[in-house]
């Protein structure tokens, strides 16, 4: 009996091992891929995923299911992903900077770590922009700064979320310009439009997309990018005006830490192709297309960590 069991066990093991080897060698992907968006439908992350979905499906030859798992500003999905996703490339998740840098510093129980996954690529960024309405007394950034010097804290700027890209870069701007403003967090881009049009805030510190979307009714005083963005050719950068502020939100996609290199490479290529095909749709909206992969991911992370880290620690 013992002998039979042993043989059986051995043969089963052998078969299993062969099976596993076969699996590992089989070309990824063979199954449907789940693409988790940690935010509500309708947001920038979701809209981008919808654009990418058909192209990814074509490139990868399997269906890509976009699912939403909103909550806690992304943290719910991220902590769940780091705790339970299998490193096989069949579960991928959207990641956003600065959320994944800020939340683990700021919260004791974010439930995930900034680095405890492998970021495949950042496919686009949305630079911050300082936007006021058409009837605002400020025509230039300097006018706003002058007023802020005379009336500290009196100018209210709305933005999306607390310690978000908007908030952090506004804090950097305050430091650079030596002024005090008042930041009012809103729950997203939607309410910000209303807040600006209804005159409930003096201006908003949000992304370039809002500047293009509301082009008819707003003035974009400054953009936090290296150079002017294509959708807003008339809006000057902070740099042009003497303030070294380059920042915004980066959106990308991550897989679990131990995912094989080939899988990561396949995904990288598919996302790059998707990016190339949707550039025409996204650039006019104010997105800046990026192709950040491999070591560049770490560089970007390090750069932004350096920029935001001190502000976040201070806030602690």
């Amino acid at each position, binding site marked *: 009996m013992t002998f039979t069991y042993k043989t059986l066990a051995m043969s089963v093991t052998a078969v299993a091992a062969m099976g596993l080897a076969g699996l590992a060698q089989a070309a990824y992907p063979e199954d449907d891929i789940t693409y988790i968006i940690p935010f509500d439908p309708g947001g920038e992350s*979701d809209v981008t995923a919808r654009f990418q979905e058909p192209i990814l499906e074509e490139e990868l030859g399997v269906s890509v299911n976009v699912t939403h798992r909103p909550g*806690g*500003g992304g943290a719910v999905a991220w902590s769940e992903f780091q705790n339970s996703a299998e490193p096989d490339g069949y579960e991928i998740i959207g990641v956003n900077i600065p959320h994944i840098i800020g939340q683990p510093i700021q919260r004791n*129980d974010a*439930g995930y770590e900034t680095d405890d996954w492998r970021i495949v690529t950042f496919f686009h960024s949305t630079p911050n922009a300082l936007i006021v309405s058409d009837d605002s007394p400020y025509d230039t950034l300097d006018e706003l700064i002058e007023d802020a010097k005379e009336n*500290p804290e009196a100018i209210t700027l709305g933005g999306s979320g607390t310690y978000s890209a908007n908030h952090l870069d506004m804090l950097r701007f305050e430091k650079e310009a030596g002024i005090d403003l008042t930041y009012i967090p809103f729950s997203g881009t939607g309410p910000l439009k*209303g807040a600006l049009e209804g005159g409930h805030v003096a201006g908003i510190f949000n992304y370039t997309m809002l500047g293009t*979307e509301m082009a008819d009714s707003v003035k974009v005083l400054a953009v936090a990018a290296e150079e002017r963005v294509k959708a807003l050719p008339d809006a000057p950068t902070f740099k042009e005006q003497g303030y070294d502020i380059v920042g915004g939100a980066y959106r990308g996609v991550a897989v679990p830490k131990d995912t094989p290199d080939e899988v990561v490479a396949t995904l990288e290529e598919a996302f790059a192709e998707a990016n190339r095909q949707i550039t025409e*749709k996204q650039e006019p909206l104010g997105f800046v297309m990026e192709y950040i992969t491999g070591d560049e991911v770490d560089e970007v992370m390090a750069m932004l960590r350096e920029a935001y880290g001190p502000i976040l620690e201070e806030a602690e």
Partner: protein
Amino acid sequence: MEMLLEALTSLLTFESILTVLIGVSAGLFIGAMPGLTATMALAMLLPFTFSMEALQGLIALGAVYMGSIYGGAFTAILINTPGTPSSIATTFDGYPMARQGRAYEALAAATMASVVGGIVGVIFLLILAPPLARLAVAFGPSEMFWVAMLGLTLVASLSSDSLLKGLLAGCIGILLSTIGVSPVGGESRFTFGYPPLQGGIELIVALIGLFVIPELLTMAAEGRGALPGGGELRKKEVSIAKIARHIFSKPVNLIRSCLIGQIIAIIPGAGGNVTSLVAYNEARRFSKDPKSFGKGNIDGVVASESSNNVMVAGSMVPLLTLGIPGAPPDAIILGVLLMHGLRPGLDLFTESGVLTNGFILSMGLAALLLLPVGLLGGRLIHRVVIRTPYYFLVPSIAMVTILGTFALRNSMLDVGIMLILGTAGYFLRLIGIQAAPIVLGLILGGIAEQGYVQTLMAAVVDPIPWLRLVSNPLSMVLAGMVLLGAATALVPMWLARKGLLDKVEEDSGGSS
């Protein structure tokens, strides 16, 4: 006008009408299932529209939206469980009517009210969109705070027997709303070191738990079906014409509810749950016989159902003009618009005006189709709900409820929260603490908090910061309305206690 005609032509094709018909039917059935909200109906059917053209996709979703909001009335009336949260107020009188054997009457009234409401909303959207959009942005943080406060004064009227229990329930709701990451400030609160709780308690999860589970437990405990004695659809034969005459001969209630529905629909985030509650409350306040509300007054059903269907098209005023969802399901419509490269704003009414008007008109068509679909499908739903013995019904509803809750965010935690809240809700109900004020506190707590904190942050340079809450005319008016609302609830109670209203109490004593 030319654009409107062109839009009408594009709508009057076989394909479009079929799309609306299917959309309304699908929405009706999904909306009628407890736990499956209009938002979920839209989300579930969204993938089917991906392959369609922009107009067809929007038409389909608009029809689903209209159908599902109306569908919520069915289960609200038949089993005291709002199929969608916007039908909460329909349960107050619809279910008592059903228990009196007047289910058919209630359903017919709900159908007519929904049709009228739906069409009124479309007319509002069509004519008033641009000017009303300006009204919507006037609601800043301080105004939103007062709107939430106004909603909370409802607590007093929802707690018919004891103000104290009502307030207690409201406080439970507000406390529940503080779980998770704070709306302003971003701190995580009351997570007890458990990361998934950062997401807070999803409103719909709480709604399902607090409304469905206690009802199921009560049904199981009492060993009865949804309706007593098999509950015939029409114990008392009432003709549709007679119901129609009742509703339309005194249209004040209908007009008032539609107006309330429209005004609240424009306020971002308020949604159908609030509209129907406010419309119901006002119908009761203005009624000659307020004591009959909650005991099967048809006007309560009409108020709730007309106002929530006004909201369907009405809430798209801020959506189409500003990109601000007036109600949660609109967020999905927004997603579809963006997917087709349509940005909310003036462009929608000029450049792509034909498409936008076609979409708006299709919702009017959807509202009209509620009548045949509702009256035919209604019998089917009624039959399914009534003929099924409770020992099949209870587990089936429980199953659908649990699946629906899970599907919401693919989260077992939500299922757990739903079951915990539901069980707690059952015991709270036994001691007289009702679910409705708890839910009200949960919805409005977050809105009030956000408005209050944002207002005070902006007022950091003011000598007396909280004065900012009443610093402009609109917020003063709203604050006045809150005081008035509180007074109308408290003063009669106080007078009664003083013994000044003894007579009235005696008059109504017999019926309660």
